[in-house]
């Protein structure tokens, strides 16, 4: 199933990057999207080897969403998302080694191995998680935006959530307060068509998620999430809206996940053909690759070089995540309270 709302002729379809995008930018997006894909493939592999445990939700297929939006962000902007968070962390500049080592539950991970795949944070990169409760990150994102508005700066918060999360009550609550208080928050609905095994049409009769904002007076639009340039352009519009003090903005980004919901999902709720169709005809990375080649911005050799660089980074991250030791047993009792040691009850 192709995304329902896509621009008829996107940059990807014509092979020409938009006028305001340089070849360098395009190469950067290619690189960033590829890093996420290769990283996720490696994570899947390590999971298969038993080095990663529990739940592990891969971002493969959705790379253009976060890379496009990060391209629209500025230093100091904040981001928060769900458990499907590896791509967001890599895209905002977090170290692949620290992310992978958290997946393997090692001391070198961003949370010292105590958070896992679904719960990671980076104060330095203004990445506020990594949340395992579907939609809990939505009011949290509004609250982060509240803190910026309270301080009177012009930062914005990117708050990512899924099509499944969009049906949670706290999303409606957050829309209402964000608009009431003009909070500088961009609600990014990553509509990958499925919430675990439940397709959008089996979850709602009102499938145009961005339009729900209209009821609260929030501006928004749907975007082709398989086109990194379209995502970036929409992101820039949303950021400008928020920075101008006009309150929140909703972006419903139409995307698709190629892998199962988590590593243990046999994905019987959709056909192999549906997945293959998206992979072969709509893949965001392949689209940019074609743009680079047909536009004469890069040769096959240039791209091979990038591929190799990315492979090295990912392999290095995987090595680090195996070599980094497990946390010391004393870590069980740290980080429970910021000031005091826990009591022995």
């Amino acid at each position, binding site marked *: 199933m192709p995304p329902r709302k896509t621009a008829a002729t996107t940059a990807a379809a014509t092979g020409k990057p938009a006028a305001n995008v340089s070849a360098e930018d395009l190469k950067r997006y290619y690189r960033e999207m590829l890093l996420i894909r290769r990283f996720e*493939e490696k994570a899947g*592999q390590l*999971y*298969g*080897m*038993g*080095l990663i445990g*529990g739940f592990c939700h891969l971002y493969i297929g959705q790379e253009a969403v976060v890379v496009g939006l990060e391209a629209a962000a500025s230093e100091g902007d*904040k981001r928060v998302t769900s458990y499907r968070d590896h791509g967001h962390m890599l895209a905002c500049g977090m170290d692949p080694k620290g992310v992978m080592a958290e997946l*393997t539950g*090692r*001391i070198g991970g*961003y*949370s*010292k191995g*105590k*958070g896992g795949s679904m719960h*990671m*944070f980076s*104060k330095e990169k203004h990445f*506020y*998680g*990594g949340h395992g*409760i579907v939609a*809990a990150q939505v*009011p*949290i994102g*509004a*609250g*982060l935006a509240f*803190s910026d508005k*309270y301080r009177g700066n012009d930062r914005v918060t990117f708050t990512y959530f899924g099509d499944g999360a969009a049906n949670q009550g*706290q999303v409606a*609550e*957050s829309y*209402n*307060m964000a608009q009431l208080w003009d909070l500088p928050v961009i609600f990014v609905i990553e509509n990958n068509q499925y919430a675990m095994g439940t397709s959008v049409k089996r979850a709602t009769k009102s499938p145009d998620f961005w339009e729900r904002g209209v009821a609260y007076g929030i501006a928004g639009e749907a975007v082709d999430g398989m086109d990194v340039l379209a995502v970036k352009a929409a992101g820039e519009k949303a950021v400008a809206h928020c920075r101008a003090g006009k309150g929140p903005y909703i972006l419903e980004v139409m995307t698709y996940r*190629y*892998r*199962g919901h988590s*590593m*243990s999902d*046999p*994905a019987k709720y959709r056909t192999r053909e549906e997945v293959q169709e998206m992979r072969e005809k709509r893949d965001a990375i392949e689209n940019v690759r074609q743009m680079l080649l047909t536009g004469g911005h890069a040769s096959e050799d240039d791209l091979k070089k990038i591929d190799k660089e990315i492979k090295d980074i990912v392999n290095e991250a995987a090595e680090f995540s195996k070599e*980094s030791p*497990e946390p*010391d*047993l*004393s870590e*069980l*009792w*740290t*980080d*429970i*309270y*910021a000031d005091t040691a*826990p*009591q*022995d*009850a």
Partner: protein
Amino acid sequence: MATEILMPALSPTMEEGTLAKWLVKEGDSVKSGDILAEIETDKATMEFEAVDEGVIGKLLVAEGTEGVKVNTPIAIIGEAGETMAAKAPAPADEAPKAAEKAPAAAAASAPASVKVDRSPDWPDGTKMKTQTVREALRDAMAEEMRADDSVFIMGEEVAEYQGAYKITQGLLDEFGARRVIDTPITEHGFAGIGVGAAFGGLKPIVEFMTFNFAMQAIDHIINSAAKTLYMSGGQMGAPMVFRGPNGAAARVGAQHSHDYAAWYSQIPGLKVVMPYSAADAKGLLKTAIRDPNPVVFLENEILYGRSFEVPDVDDFTIPFGKAKIWREGSDVTIVSFGIGMTYALEAAEKLAAEGIEAEVIDLRTLRPLDYDTILESVKKTNRCVTVEEGFPVCSIGNHLSAYIMTHAFDYLDAPVLNCTGKDVPMPYAANLEKLALTSVAEVIEAVKTVTYR
């Protein structure tokens, strides 16, 4: 370079599986994402995809093979033109090696708690004033808001209405709408916004009109606020206060009378405060606002109007984890907190008239909890009765009983008894409501039981 493809774990619990079907054959070129095989786990049949590009060299495990252990090499993949022999299967065990040393005893248990602190809450001769709990709470917030611009309060009716229970009276006038914020009726949402604001570096006070309504927000209190410091490896947490009236008021029925003391006290990462007096309400709320952790601050509507002596000084705080002994005695220890103290103190007066001297301890904070003061007292009196209004099952009293049994068993001359609310939803009828709560008579009876009088 030839690499082995290993039998993958395809669920959090999978240890082995059936290689149901190969979808490639030797010599096939594959690229990342191509489906190599179907593998049956204990739960489902899953497709297994290639990660690397290459040519399938050898299939090492025939389709239909059952019981293939995770990490067993099942195929060899290499670059085009390469000849591939199966490597001697290396023990495919890359499981973590680190930290396999036996758990050191010290590391495997929580650090020991601090020792008994008997220092007075304020120096002798401190000027005092009479205040209600309500006024004390308001003053605590106003003083902290004056001192720190990052402190703000949000909740239903806290600003223009001046507080549903008038705890925030006057705050809007002094601090303005930026810092005293009326919310819509949307507990789940504004609790989450409060947590986000705390992640963003502010120090929110989130007022719940009553804690009954915080049940709609409990996910953010526990999952978002209490656990984040740990889940982030200490990088960020939620320095904030969730406060409001808790427990039974009067004649408001089952949905408006719930005491959550035991619920929140179960959660590592939260601090839990339940004051009785006005001085404690003030001193502990100021400490709560300054605390770098999420604090659940449980007030009581019936206590709001009670007056107590409060130190009349500029900056007065009470530390967490320090119980207060309201009355010394040698015959029995009565432990309580919050409104439970009204039963405890009245019972102690009446018992004294009968010649039984009770030591009455007000816990004041439930997390951290001043275990040392309780143990010290029980070792002296050899008997203990706990008093609270909450439900009996898994109550604070149950926990204290277990703790005392574990740490002072040899000192006990009688079982620890728990006076609690009854195990029923709160009824509306006046006589039944009275019966559903604990009572002075029950406390007296319990004390007589443990003192064998």
